[in-house]
C-alpha cells in the first residue's frame, strides 16, 4: 500500500529530516510512527500526502510513484488518504454534520450521496445524536471523532493520524484508539504518529521509530521505547522484538527495505 524506497528529504539549510528511509506498509496494517520531536515523523506523513517531495528515493502509495504524479493529480491522490491532526482542524462555523459533509462537497459528490454517507459515518464514530452541534459545543474527544469522521467519510485506503490524541486525556484517548482500531478492522491502513507511550504499549501493533531522520526500529507488536543505547546498535534493523531483532542481526539479515520479509516471518498476528 505504502512504500518508501531510500527516501532522503532535507529542508533548506537544515540537517536532513529523513535519511535513506526504506519501509513498506501493507494494506490493512496499523502502524505507529514514534520518535522525538524533529525526528522526521511529520515529514514522513507529508511525503505520503505529497505535500513534500523526496530529494532522493521514491515514495509509492497504492502502487503509484508520487514523484511522477503531475500537480493536478495530487488532489485525486489525497482522496485516498484521510488525515487527522492533533488540533482537529474543524471549521468552527459549520455544524458537525456540515463539517463532515464538507469533505464530500468539495470533491463534488451529489447531495443525496453526501446525506447518506454523513449519517453512516457519524453513527460509526458514535456521534449519531450530535449532527447539529457546533464544534465548540463538543468535548475534545468528540471533536476528534468529528475529525476522524471527516477523514473517513470518503472511505480512504489509508488514514494518516498526526498525534491524534496529543490534546486529549488518557481515558478519551483510549476511546479514540478504539475508534481507530475499528476503522483499521474495516481494512483501512492506519499510520499514526504519536508520543503517547501508554497507547503504543497497550495496542502492541507495529512500531516504526525514527531518530534524526533515520529509521532506527521497525518492530511488529512493539512498544514505545526501550533503552537509549539500543538506538544505535539496532539502527535500521527490523526487529520482531528487541531481543529477536538482535538475533536477526546476527543472521546477517540486511537491514532496511526488508520489512515485507519481516512481515512474512511475523506469523503471530
Amino acid at each position: 500500500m505504502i512504500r518508501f524506497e531510500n527516501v532522503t528529504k532535507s529542508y533548506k539549510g537544515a540537517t536532513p529530516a529523513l535519511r535513506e528511509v526504506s519501509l513498506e506498509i501493507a494494506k490493512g496494517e496499523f502502524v505507529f510512527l514514534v520518535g522525538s520531536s524533529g525526528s522526521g515523523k511529520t515529514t514522513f506523513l507529508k511525503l505520503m500526502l505529497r505535500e513534500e517531495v523526496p530529494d532522493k528515493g521514491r515514495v509509492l502509495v497504492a502502487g503509484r510513484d508520487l514523484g511522477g504524479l503531475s500537480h493536478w493529480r495530487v488532489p485525486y491522490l489525497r482522496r485516498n488518504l484521510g488525515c487527522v491532526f492533533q488540533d482537529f482542524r474543524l471549521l468552527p462555523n459549520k455544524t458537525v454534520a456540515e463539517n463532515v459533509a464538507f469533505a464530500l462537497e468539495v470533491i463534488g459528490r451529489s447531495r443525496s450521496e453526501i446525506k447518506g454517507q454523513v449519517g453512516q459515518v457519524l453513527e460509526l464514530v458514535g456521534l449519531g445524536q450530535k449532527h447539529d452541534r457546533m464544534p465548540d459545543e463538543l468535548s475534545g474527544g468528540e471533536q476528534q471523532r468529528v475529525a476522524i469522521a471527516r477523514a473517513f467519510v470518503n472511505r480512504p485506503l489509508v488514514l494518516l493520524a498526526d498525534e491524534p490524541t496529543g490534546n486529549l486525556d488518557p481515558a478519551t484517548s483510549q476511546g479514540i484508539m478504539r475508534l481507530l482500531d475499528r476503522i483499521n478492522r474495516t481494512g483501512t491502513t492506519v499510520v499514526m504518529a504519536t508520543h503517547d507511550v501508554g497507547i503504543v504499549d497497550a495496542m502492541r501493533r507495529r512500531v516504526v521509530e525514527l531518530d534524526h531522520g533515520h529509521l532506527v526500529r521497525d518492530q511488529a507488536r512493539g512498544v514505545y521505547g526501550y533503552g537509549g543505547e539500543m538506538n544505535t546498535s539496532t539502527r535500521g534493523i527490523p526487529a520482531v522484538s528487541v531481543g529477536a531483532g538482535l538475533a536477526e542481526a546476527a543472521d546477517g539479515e540486511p537491514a532496511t527495505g526488508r520489512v515485507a520479509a519481516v512481515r512474512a516471518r511475523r506469523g503471530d498476528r
Partner: protein
Amino acid sequence: MGLSIDYVAKETATNLWRNRMMALAAILTVAVSLSLVGTSLLLRQAVNRQIGQFGQNVSLEVFMNANASTQQLADVRSMIEQTPQITHFTYLNHQQSYQQAKQILAGNPVAADALTPAIVPTVFRCQLASPADAAALVATFANGVPGVYRATSPLQSIHVLEQVSNVLQIILIVVAILLLVSSLVLILNAIRMAIFARRLEVGVMKLVGATNWFIRVPFMLEGLVQGLLGAAAAVVIVLLSNIGVNYLVRRYHVSVLSSAVLPAHDLLMTELVVVAVGVVIGVAGSSVAVRRFLDV
C-alpha cells in the same frame, strides 16, 4: 467536476460580505478609475466629431487688401489656380463680401452700418484636398504675397483644439492608469485577505482532495464581481455625465459643447470598454492573488 453553481455563488457571496470593507475600497477605486477612462474616451470622441464637422468644409480664406490692384488680384488668382492642394475656389467681390459681412454682423447694427462695400476686403474662398495642407498654405499666402491682407483657415483652430484635448487626454489617461493599477492592487489585496480569512477551510479542502480549480474559482469570481461592480458604477457615472452635458447643450445652447452630444452608438461602445476593463482588472487581480497566495 462538481463545481455547482449554487456552491460557487454561495461561497462568493459569503466571501464578499465577510470582507466587505476591503471589497468596498476595491470597488470604489475601480469605479473612479473607470469613470476617468470612460470620460476620457468620450472626450476623445467629442473632439474627433468636432474636427470631423470642420473637416467637411475644409477651407482656406485669402482676404485681399481693400485697395489691392487688379494686377495683384490676378496674380493671387493665378497663384491659387496653380496650387494643386486647392481643389476648388470662389471669389467674393466687394459687393458679395459686403453682403456676407452684413449677415455675420446682423446682431450688431452699429457695426454693420459702418461698413461700406469699398472697405470690406474681397475674399478667395478655397476648398482644400486635405486638412493637413492648411497650415502650410496659410503661411504661404500670409507671408509677402502682394495685396493679400491675411489668410486664415479654421483648420488652425482645430489644431489648437486637438492639442488641448491631447494634453487633457494624456493627463486623464495617466491618472486613470495609476488608479487602475491601484484598483488592481486593491482587488489583489482583498482576495489575499479573503484567502487568509479562509485558510483553515482552504487547508481542509486541500487535505480532502478538492481540486485546485475548485478551491480557486470562488476567489477568482470574487475578484470578477468586484471589478464588475466597480465597472457598473462607472457606467452609471459616465452615463450621468453624458446626460448632464446633453442637458447643458439643450438648456443653454452651449454650442461649443454641441459636438459633445454623442450618438447612442458611441456611448454604448464606451460603456462596453469600461465594463471590459473592469472585468479584466477583477480577473487579473484575483488571478495573481490566487496564484501567489493560494499555493495548492
